[in-house]
């Protein structure tokens, strides 16, 4: 693989590849019709949040069930700042940049505060607190409906295509571009962190917090930073979504959506950024696929109504369980373990049709970090430490 970029190392390579992929993705938008571009914009916005979540869960072992609420924080901050900018007479790119700045600042502060609380909490406690945050979101927007607009949320001004592109693309494609750019920056930054010394520390904290602390890793600080980064990524995703849909409301960021983000992170493969991309695509496309499949069958109106939506939920829940139990490395680990550890896994049929399954055996989307989770069995002698000592 050095042939691709022999001179590049470390962070710089991550950045270059991030940039290349961003450009590729933007080029890809020309192959899509407006509706698919809208879907792509949504997927990419979710990708930000899922990448943040997968970093948090996969690298530091902290589980958040409230990432949708963290997205909402970014979205609300974007909407408030952008509306303020509108009042000041700004529009277009300056308004967007100001809105993003607002979203990032608020997400950082919010993530930091939550992270400070969360760093003291072990897995299930943090999961419970973030769950409570997801539940409290509608109450908060109702309580402060003067600012946050209650159930209806906030609307922002329409963002058309800038003058220079207006002959080239339609608005959905423009929105996809912006969403891809945001994700490109955010995810490249996450990838760089993951690869850095900080990323190593996160893994150390996940594997054995006490041991990490003894070897000089400031565990609490690492966890706070991880939570903050994750929150910022989710906030950026929320801001992107707010930009694309020109609105934000609590009903769009429910607990169910939070859980879907967990599905995306787990099914993609915890800790894997490629997996996060697959997971984000999955949660957008699967309900649509399920809908298409059920439409193909004749059934009574009542049955159709009962299946609609519920069937997608059923598939997601089932996937979550199966992946977690059978292949904790997620989609990203399929075809990965060539000649390593256990015997090579059977080539599972790819859920993505011929295009993906052709690519899977040789070029797996996963990267090495997943194996130190799934391959951990080797070291897991784990003579269980009795707690009564």
């Amino acid at each position, binding site marked *: 693989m050095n042939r691709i970029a022999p001179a590049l190392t470390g962070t710089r390579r991550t950045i270059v590849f991030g940039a290349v992929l961003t450009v590729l993705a933007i080029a890809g938008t020309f192959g899509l019709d407006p509706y698919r571009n809208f879907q792509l914009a949504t997927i990419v916005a979710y990708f930000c949040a899922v990448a943040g979540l997968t970093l948090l869960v996969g690298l530091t072992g902290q589980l958040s069930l409230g990432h949708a609420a963290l997205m909402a924080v970014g979205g609300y901050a974007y909407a408030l700042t952008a509306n303020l900018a509108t009042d000041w007479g700004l529009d277009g790119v300056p308004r967007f940049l100001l809105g993003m700045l607002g979203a990032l600042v608020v997400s950082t502060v919010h993530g930091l505060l939550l992270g400070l609380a969360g760093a003291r909490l072990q897995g299930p406690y943090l999961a419970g*607190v973030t*769950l*409570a945050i997801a539940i409290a979101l509608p109450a908060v927007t109702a309580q402060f409906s003067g600012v946050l607009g209650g159930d209806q949320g906030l609307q922002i001004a329409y963002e058309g295509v800038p003058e220079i592109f207006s002959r080239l693309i339609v608005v959905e494609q423009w929105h996809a571009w912006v969403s891809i750019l945001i994700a490109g920056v955010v995810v490249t930054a996450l990838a760089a962190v993951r690869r850095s010394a900080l990323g190593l520390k996160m893994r150390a904290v996940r594997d054995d917090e006490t041991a990490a602390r003894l070897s000089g890793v400031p565990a609490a600080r690492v966890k706070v930073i991880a939570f903050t980064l994750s929150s910022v990524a989710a906030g950026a995703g929320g801001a992107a979504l707010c930009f694309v849909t020109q609105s934000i409301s609590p009903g769009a960021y429910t607990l169910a959506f939070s859980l879907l983000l967990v599905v995306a992170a787990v099914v993609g493969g915890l800790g894997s950024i490629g997996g996060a991309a697959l997971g984000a695509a999955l949660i957008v496309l699967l309900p649509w696929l399920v809908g298409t499949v059920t439409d193909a069958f004749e059934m009574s109106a009542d049955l159709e109504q009962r299946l609609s939506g519920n069937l997608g939920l059923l598939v997601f*829940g089932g996937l979550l369980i199966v992946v977690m139990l059978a292949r904790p490395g997620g989609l990203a680990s399929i075809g990965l373990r060539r000649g390593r550890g256990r015997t090579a896994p059977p080539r599972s049929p790819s859920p993505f049709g011929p295009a993906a399954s052709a690519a899977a055996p040789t070029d797996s989307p996963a990267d090495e970090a997943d194996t130190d989770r799934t391959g951990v069995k080797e070291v897991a002698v784990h003579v269980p430490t009795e707690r009564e000592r």
Partner: protein
Amino acid sequence: MDHLLFLLATGLARGAIFALFALSLVLIWRAARIINFAQGAMALVATYVAFAVTGLSGSYWVGLTAGILAGAVIGFGVERGLMRFTKDSHPLAGIIVAIGLVMVLQALLGIFFGQQHRPMQTPFSDSPLLWGDTPLLSPYDLFVLVVALGVMGVMALLFNRTSLGLQLRASAFAPEVSRVLGVRVSRMVTIGWMLSAAVAALAAMLLVPTELGLNPHSTDVLFIYAFTVAVVGGLDSPVGALIGGLVVGVAMTLVTGYIGATVAPIGVLVLLLLVLLVRPGGIFSMREARSA
């Protein structure tokens, strides 16, 4: 003052249900060191069973019994069929699989029973008894309180006075030593799940008749509040669950009554954060919080 008394009484009855459900979370925590995020959904399935059996038999009590049994069976199935296999997987596998289970169960309930609210009847009148001019607890509230306290008492006896209880406690605290001593630990874990799921089912069946009706989301909020209660009380402490439940129930009713309904969920979040930050092991825990 009358209003305050009334709110206190109402809060007590709700709190008893929270306490009972929180107790079920404590039971499972003690048996398997897992916070079962699927507890609400599992209890809900049992409640649907109770609803169906009551409908068929015409008797609330037959339905209640069937629901409790169904809860135990579901607990058995979930432990043997799913949770047993999470041990060797990812550290968060237990939670994540439980979340998957919630999705599956709610989807199945939606498919088989639809989304409508199905009213459930109470076995006793739910009109409050008057104390002077102030309405206090209804006979149904009293029933709930008695059942909640009764179950707590039975559980206390079971755990502290019987061989089964001794083995359950030992298995939870020191699984390996227990096995060395001939205790069938994996059976104890299963029994713990069954007990816990049955208690949760009972709590859900007590709650649903006081609400809009049975539907696939009936226990969503109950789980959150009970989780808060369990954490506030200390996940290892049944006494903490009881006191925590009553405190949270009363506090929520007071907040709703004096400040506003919207503030209550925010209040719960704040309470949860405060307790976890100040006393991460819960108010009634004897020892430091353990890692999961």
